[in-house]
């Protein structure tokens, strides 16, 4: 922040105000406080339990889908599932899932060397958090089956 401004010279406020230009992130700080309250009210252990339950619930059903490959550990995962379905490109897969209201990330996930190591061009990734439900996992799984059916028809 400035102290005095002229056409060819200016003086600055003393520290720390010199580096505090503009409006501080007041809304952000209040939002962070509210987010912390929210998480503490639910409890981090409960959140972790919920995530692990959803991932296990999803994994169990996804393993049953023929041609679906899950990358990484097959058990004790954190709350992400990275996968590919047959030869369907993840972008195409994501577009079909999107039509069912399911958002997955598709592409190289800012991890191109990992994609090369996995010997794939791209993957799809579903992630689960406190606000996700078993019903949504069911829609995801149904969407994956539909995708398989849809592209199976297209390719046949």
């Amino acid at each position, binding site marked *: 922040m400035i102290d005095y401004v002229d056409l060819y010279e200016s003086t600055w406020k003393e520290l720390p105000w010199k580096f505090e230009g503009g409006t501080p992130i007041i809304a952000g700080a209040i939002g962070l406080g509210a987010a912390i309250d929210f998480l503490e009210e639910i409890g981090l252990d409960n959140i972790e339990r919920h995530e692990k339950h959803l991932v296990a619930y999803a994994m169990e059903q996804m393993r049953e889908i023929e041609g679906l490959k899950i990358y990484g550990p097959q058990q004790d995962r954190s709350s992400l599932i990275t996968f590919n379905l047959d030869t369907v490109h993840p*972008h195409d897969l994501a577009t079909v899932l*999107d039509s069912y209201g399911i958002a997955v990330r598709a592409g190289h996930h800012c991890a191109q060397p990992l994609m090369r190591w996995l010997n794939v061009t*791209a993957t799809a990734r579903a992630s689960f958090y406190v606000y996700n439900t078993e019903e949504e996992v069911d829609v995801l799984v149904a969407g994956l089956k539909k995708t398989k059916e849809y592209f199976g028809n297209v390719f046949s």
Partner: protein
Amino acid sequence: MSSLDDLYRRVIMDHYQKPRNRGKLEESDGLIVNLNNPTCGDSISLSLKVEEGKVVDAKFLGEGCSISMSSASMMTDAVKGKPVEEALELAHKFSDLMQGKEIDDSIDLGDIEALSGVAKFPARIKCATLAWKALEQGIKAARQE
């Protein structure tokens, strides 16, 4: 699934499964443009042979989704044998098509028309335009030579 059917038209899947003009030209025989879509990982390597103001040959290699690869296949098919001006004109029309604009009938888009459904899927527009961006860069490079 009707809007999905608008996107994944049969002719698109046909180009995806059986890409036309897949390959590359010798470096002595043309110029090569390599383009990536860094946010999604699609890539194309377009070989262009431009002689006397004409796109004499076009081939492509690449990796990507059905939209980006079928678009590359259609693009190479469409511009081969065309004067550079017409090829660029087609690129502009394609850009209009992706923005959902009406295209006048003066140019027959052929198979390319099948990609018009992409305009309704904003996240996929960049997939479809990758090959055409490569074409524009290639023509620009050819003109500078």
